[in-house]
């Protein structure tokens, strides 16, 4: 059996470019972007918080889409992609949940704010992803594992608008103004805007690079399992 992945390393060029992009972003964010007037240095968490969220939601969307494809076509590659994307999504979502309270504490003196839609949605999506990964870990048969986790992923995607709406309407009376952590309004000045947009770009690159790496790792694991099965272990 030819090895698909022997020629392509797990961490390839794309990954290193992405890491460089993120490092460049931090350098720019810390040293070359002006301080925000009201919040000071703490506002710079924004350049991690929002890009992490975008990376997380991208990864989660990929998982949901790959799961749909798996349920429809039963292609193992879709299942592998869903798994890779979910793990990367967990990492980015955790970043959101760590940076969120840190920032919230600095600006509102409260560690957790239920009325912040992004934060609350991230929390429950984090639980869905953990549930997804634990479910995968609890099933031995690959076909059953693929099927069950795909069903969970699609239901999880269906859940998102409901969490959004229920949080919004349950907490609307708590804080009428901004419902998502934002820097001061109205618009970001050009230097900050560039940092912000490059941040999103860099994190997206990193997210996709990590998914690719994890996917390749998954391919190698499956090959190993196939060889072991043939040898009769």
């Amino acid at each position: 059996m030819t090895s698909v992945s022997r020629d392509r390393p797990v961490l390839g060029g794309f990954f290193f470019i992405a890491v460089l992009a993120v490092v460049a972003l931090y350098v720019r964010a810390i040293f070359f972007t002006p301080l925000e007037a009201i919040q000071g240095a703490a506002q710079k968490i924004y350049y991690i918080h929002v890009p992490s969220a975008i990376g997380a939601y991208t990864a989660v969307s990929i998982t949901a889409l790959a799961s749909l494809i798996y349920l429809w076509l039963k292609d193992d590659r879709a299942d592998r992609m869903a798994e890779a994307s979910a793990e990367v999504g967990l990492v980015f979502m955790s970043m959101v949940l760590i940076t969120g309270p840190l920032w919230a504490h600095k600006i509102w003196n409260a560690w957790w704010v239920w009325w912040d839609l992004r934060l609350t949605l991230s929390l429950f999506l984090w639980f869905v992803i953990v549930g997804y990964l634990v479910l995968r870990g609890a099933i031995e048969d690959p076909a059953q594992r693929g099927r069950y986790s795909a069903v969970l992923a699609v239901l999880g995607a269906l859940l998102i608008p409901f969490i959004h709406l229920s949080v919004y309407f349950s907490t609307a009376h708590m804080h009428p103004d901004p419902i998502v952590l934002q820097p001061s309004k109205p618009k970001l000045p050009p230097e900050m805007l560039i940092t912000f947009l490059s941040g999103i770009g860099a994190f997206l690159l990193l997210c996709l690079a990590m998914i690719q790496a994890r996917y390749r790792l998954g391919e190698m694991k499956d090959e190993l399992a196939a060889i072991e099965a043939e040898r009769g272990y």
Partner: protein
Amino acid sequence: MLEVSDVTRMFGRRRAVDGVDLTLAAGDCLALFGPNGAGKTTLLRLISGLLKPTKGAIRVGGQSLRDDASARGLLGLISHQSMLYSALTSRENVEFAARLYGISGARSAAMRALERMRIADRANAPVRSLSRGLQQRVSIARAIVHEPRVVLLDEPYTGLDAAGGAALTDMLSALRADGACLVLVTHNVEEGLALSTQAAVMLNGRIARRDDARGLDHRVYQADYRAMVLGAIDRRSERVSVSA
């Protein structure tokens, strides 16, 4: 009555059932022998609809099992697990099964099935109060209450005492006389051959040998069968020791 055409079932990369063909007419009984892990139970689960084949088709009473839910109404399955609800009584268990199949007069059908397995006297006893052997009788009653046309039996004599075994044999003969066909998986060659019209041996997911069971010399068959099975085990252990 039962047509299994080139049925294959994979679990990951393992072929549990590999290109099996079977045809049974009304009144036939196939005794299916084979060592543990040969795929006999998997084959029964495929025919009963619990598993879907990776390849191939199964037809019951002329209807495709995959496409026609009503084809399942012609099947009965007796397996290792009792499929009973231990908190309910024998009669309640069998009556529930009768209703699932749309039998009118479910209660009397249930009592009749229990009587055929000679366990009607325990009709109102909760199943958990019965011994394993008596539970097996209730389980068999449950499986045949709807007078299935194809009966799948996975080592049904296990746990039955002489009286239970006799009741089962009588019941199976009656079903066959009525036009049902049976697939009987068993380790007991004598028992299997006594009832059957066809005999087959399964090895590594394939039908390795097929015979008309009527007129077989049981002792010769038994010896041949043992040789086949031991040969297969030796070949399998050879493969493992080479790669270790």
